[in-house]
């Protein structure tokens, strides 16, 4: 088990969110979409220019930019 930034995850990789280190509007937006510590996610893919990222949660697909994913730490299988 290791923890990496969400930005560095690759397509189809899965993991569990450990921390979200951001406040204010961005923090609120991330949380209200259901991205909170403990949430299991999988990477669906990236946009043509490698940014933004699309994530699969249990029941929905969420997108966010790489620099927004930088605030999210994920525990992944090695």
């Amino acid at each position, binding site marked *: 088990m290791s923890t990496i930034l969400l930005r560095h995850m690759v397509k189809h990789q899965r993991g569990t969110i450990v921390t*979200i280190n951001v*406040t204010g*509007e*961005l*923090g*609120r*937006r*991330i*949380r*209200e*979409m*259901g*991205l*909170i*510590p403990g949430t*299991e996610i999988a990477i*669906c*893919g*990236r*946009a*043509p*220019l*490698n*940014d*933004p990222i*699309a994530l699969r*949660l*249990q*029941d*929905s*697909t*969420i*997108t*966010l*930019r790489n620099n*927004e994913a930088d605030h999210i730490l994920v525990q992944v299988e090695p």
Partner: protein
Amino acid sequence: MQLKMALAGNPNAGKTTLFNQLTGARQHVGNYPGITVDHKEGRLSHGGETIIVTDLPGTYSMTAYSAEELVARDYLVNNRPQVVINIVDASNLERNLYLTCQLLELGVPLVVALNMVDVAESRGIEINSAALSRHLQVPVVPIVARSGLGTEALLDAAIAVARENRPWTPLTISYGDDLDAALAEMLAIISDRRFLADTYPPRYTAIKYLENDQQLVERGEKTDAEAARRLQMLVDKSTDHTRRTLDVYPEAIIADQRYGYIKSLLRQGVISRKYDADRLYTSDRIDKVLTNRLVGPLIMLAILFALYQFTFSWSEVPVSWLENGFSWLGDKVEEILPEGILRSLVISGVIDGVGGVLGFVPLIMFMFFGIAVLEDSGYLARVAFMMDRVFRIFGLHGSSVMPFIVSGGIAGGCAVPGVMATRTLRSPKERMATLLTVPFMNCGAKLPVLALLIGAFFSEDRAQYMFFFTMLAWLVAMLAAKLLRSTVLRGAPTPFVMELPPYRLPTVRGLLIHTWERTYQYIKKAGTVILGISILLWAMMTFPHLPDAEQAEFAAKRQAILAEAGAEIVALLDQQGDDLPVEAAAVRERLAAIDNDQAEAALRHSLAGTIGTAMEPVSRLAGFDWRTDIALLGGFAAKEVIVSTLGTAYSMGEVDVEESQSLSERLKADDNWNRVVAVAAMIFIMFYSPCFVTLVCIAKEASWKWAAFSMGFNTIFAFALAVAVYQLGMFFGLG
């Protein structure tokens, strides 16, 4: 008595579908004052009650970050509806209940509409609505908003709740020992001083203080500064504590605890899943193709091109019906009214004005129908996803691409529907930057002007020049957006975090209602202003009239020609047709030349002419003479008017916009014109003030202040470019 009912829910939860299902066509769309969030209201009768339904903007939570959220919250606390229907997506229950939680904490009388139970079932998700209702302590009614299944039962439940008329009873969620202790201390102050008590429940106020909710904090400071100060001290203390011990802010703890509350509730027999989470649904399979990194952008280009074709080619037929209708009307009026000011006012002011307003209607209808299909199906979110990286460079948003395409990103669009299409952007700064830069694109009205000048001075490489100017429009628009975003619209980008909703087949009813309400808003809100300005512009180009002495001079010249020609030929002149004898034709031509001279003199004498002439010393910097100035002033009415006004100013009589070869020959021969002037003029025309119809739409979508800014900024910007082109070009002797 009428019942007040509000609909609240996440975007994509089917709120609008339910609203349409409940109210049908009996709805009214307006704007909340000062902001462009739709205020939708409809009425319905059920069980002998008349109910006024308000469709609140779709939000994921109730913070104070976006206009939508503020509107939703303010509506609830200020208007106090007797019942709130919270529509939740059954196939995405956990996330949707986050908003439900906040509604319950506010204490509003709630009924939960569990929507899309059919979709959830097909995904193997089974929800025990009775159990959910027991845990939330509010009625939960399973429905399918698309088909109307369950809506009767939903209304029954809502009316029952409304009739109870019980006081608001806020739900209490535990936020952990640390925060609960802080909340208790804050509650003591709030209850003691009745702080904001007439608007929010005490615990809600305390939670919002811990969440650092700007709107509520500001309001608190205004109403009771002393209590606000003491509360803020407690908030700071507890923030310090959680930062030190857990390295998180209270707002993160609050969100976690809310989700914790929802999770534990769902685990108590509310939800059961048949399949594992890895299953691919139809929507994911479609996305494998449509957002594929190689094929996705190509398909997107094809779809956007199709939308463009649909909007501008298919609407041609109704547009030409309207045009023919109005020109027929103009002809009729010409027959009935005697020549004079009244006739000129009715034809050039009123009929052309109304025609101008309604001429855009088919365009707007077709475009909003197309956009509604893309939006309701869920594809628009994918477009934003794919284009965001490119547009973000210029301070815009992935969703900006569509307004640009519609406005003339593919040459020949129109900025009026383009400006209106910026409604699909939910980020305020990015939206404003898009709205202010889409008029730079080459709309269909600029094309005849560009064609005229390219035809006159660069006839050998027409296609290349047209392509060059299309690319130039994109480049300039993007750079201008970047400039605006680093000056007047400076600010961090709005977070992109958003949902890619599952693909859904749009409902015909939803599409039609959507299209109609946009079109109606345009006619009602923009129409009257446009008509007024149209008459004003007509007056500027008409008054003051030529002095009687000069009019008499022209009349004398005409008389002289007629006298010279003799009675025989004059008699021939009244005949219709082209088969006149040579002498008569020559006389007719000389008469027409006098008419054209008089039209030129009249135009020069008018207010517009006076302004144009007065501007010449300045406009000379860019190589424009007074004739061009007047034409450019005319272009403010609509860019294609530049061609016809140039025609009048050059004594060419009426020039057909589509057939302007004669004018193009005339310009080529004129000393004031050369290739450098032509390029400077084209650049000025592409980028100067949007036509006033676009300006009125900008005013309606943003404010009159922004419309004035757009007019001034674009004109100065375009003039600077034109001067640079002209001066450099002449310096290097390219003329």
